[in-house]
């Protein structure tokens, strides 16, 4: 049996009395792109946020079952959440750079860790910006405010910012939904390039996008993982009626 980089076992999650995730068991393969699709409110974003424990920030969150990263339960009682979050990076729906300079945005994760010297940080910032295909556009104005970038650039900056932590996994929560088509395709291409370096989990509303870039696909409906498998298989012969209906646009 192949060991998955991330594995959830009978994962249940409640916000107060609201049962959001039902017995989700799913594995994520290393250095592949897994896309999570499903109608609004199906729990795909919530599931994504369990992988770096961002749901902890919401009050009255309860969880049962396990989430394993490299075989270790990230919800074990002594787990170091901040360390987990450097290993599992995240990019959000709307570009959200800090109101700081471009350089300081990318350097942020390393700066808070406080164990790198200046030249290490500079090297890593450059590498991350190159990896995010942003370097050529910003190399002359690293000290300008990140707010001066365009929306697509800002989102790539957020990706660079996450990459600077050298993460093993990158979580993308509908990263292109606030962007124009050109910026979107650039980020899609970027994802295909990045999967050589990191495991990517992407939540998307855009079925075509999922088809273009993902290796695996997870279809969620009402908090359940309905179907999971290789993308072309799921797209060509869906096992579940609901998956088929969603993919053909019956609901969404």
């Amino acid at each position, binding site marked *: 049996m192949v060991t998955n980089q991330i594995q959830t076992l009978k994962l249940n999650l409640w916000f107060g009395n609201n049962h959001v995730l039902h017995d989700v068991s799913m594995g994520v393969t290393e250095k592949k792109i897994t896309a999570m699709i499903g109608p609004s409110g199906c729990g795909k974003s919530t599931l994504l946020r369990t992988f*770096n424990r*961002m749901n902890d*920030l919401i*009050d009255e969150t309860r969880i049962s079952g396990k989430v394993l990263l490299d075989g270790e339960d990230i919800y074990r009682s002594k787990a170091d959440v*901040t*360390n*987990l*979050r*450097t290993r599992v*990076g*995240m990019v*959000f729906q*709307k570009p*959200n750079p*800090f*109101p*700081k300079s471009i350089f300081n945005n990318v350097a*942020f*994760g390393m*700066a*808070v*860790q406080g164990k790198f010297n200046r030249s290490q940080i500079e090297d890593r910032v450059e590498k991350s910006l190159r990896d995010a295909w942003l370097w050529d556009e910003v190399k002359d104005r690293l000290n300008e405010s990140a*707010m001066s970038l365009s929306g697509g650039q800002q989102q790539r900056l*957020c990706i660079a*910012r*996450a990459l600077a*932590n050298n993460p093993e996994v990158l979580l993308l929560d509908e990263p292109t939904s606030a962007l124009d088509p050109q910026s979107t395709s650039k980020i899609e291409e970027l994802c295909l390039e990045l999967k050589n370096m990191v495991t990517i989990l992407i939540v998307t509303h855009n079925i075509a996008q999922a088809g273009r870039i993902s290796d695996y696909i997870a279809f969620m409906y009402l908090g359940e993982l309905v179907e999971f498998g290789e993308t072309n298989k799921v797209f060509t012969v869906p096992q579940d009626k609901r998956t088929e209906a969603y993919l053909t646009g019956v609901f969404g």
Partner: protein
Amino acid sequence: MNTYKEKLFKALTYTASLFVIIFLFGIIYSIFREGLPILKVVKLQDFIFGSAWYPTHEIPEFGIWTLIIGSVYVTLGALVVALPLGLGSAVYISEVASPRMREIAKPIIELLAAIPSVIYGLFGMAFLAPAVRQWFNLPTGLNVFTSSIILGIMVIPIIASMSEDALSTVPKALRESSLALGATKWETIVRVVVPAAKRGIIGSTLIGFGRAIGETMVVLMVAGGSAKIPSSIFHSTRPMTSAIAAEMGETVVGDLHYQSLFAIAIVLFLITFATNIFTEIVFLKRSAR
């Protein structure tokens, strides 16, 4: 008929708006009219920088430097008390406390900001000053230290409430992305949230400063009133506001002493006006961004 009503209504509101200008002009005019003539007798630099305040002597001296310094000391002391406590409380309420606690704490802070200053003065005069005298074995509890604490307590709700407003406008996304990058809660607060709310926090401090330097009743009742530059925080002092309030009653309308008190009011007005303009600039820059 209808257009006439429209015009009348517009004229009414227009006139009302002019009253703000009229009132401000009235204030400026009245304090300058009553206060400026003192400069015929005393040179401006002697008035501001002279340190002898003997307004009723045979040969009176009008030097308000000690009063200015008194105001500055007491105000800075108040900010030393209020800034860490007010800002710390605001950050705690906004970033750490549960939503329910926030919902309770916020209105309570706003309520506390409404307490009349004379009650703080009563508390300082009847309770804190004697206590301070005993704790530190001092000749008197009516001093810079006690007034700073009372003024500080008074200013805390202002700073806390306005800083909290500023902090709560920082988008949630910034906090999330900082945490998602592996920063701890403290690092997120110090490196992301507080810097993002910087202008609002500075603004709240400036407003707290304006409130403290213009406060009258507390210093009148608690500062002691020595017209001497205090050499220790346990010495009593005479801020500008308390000099005006205490002495105005004893002057003869229109005499030099009366004029000099109005001149102090001019100085006080200019200080608060400058603070205001500065605050304005700080806030304007924010909205321009």
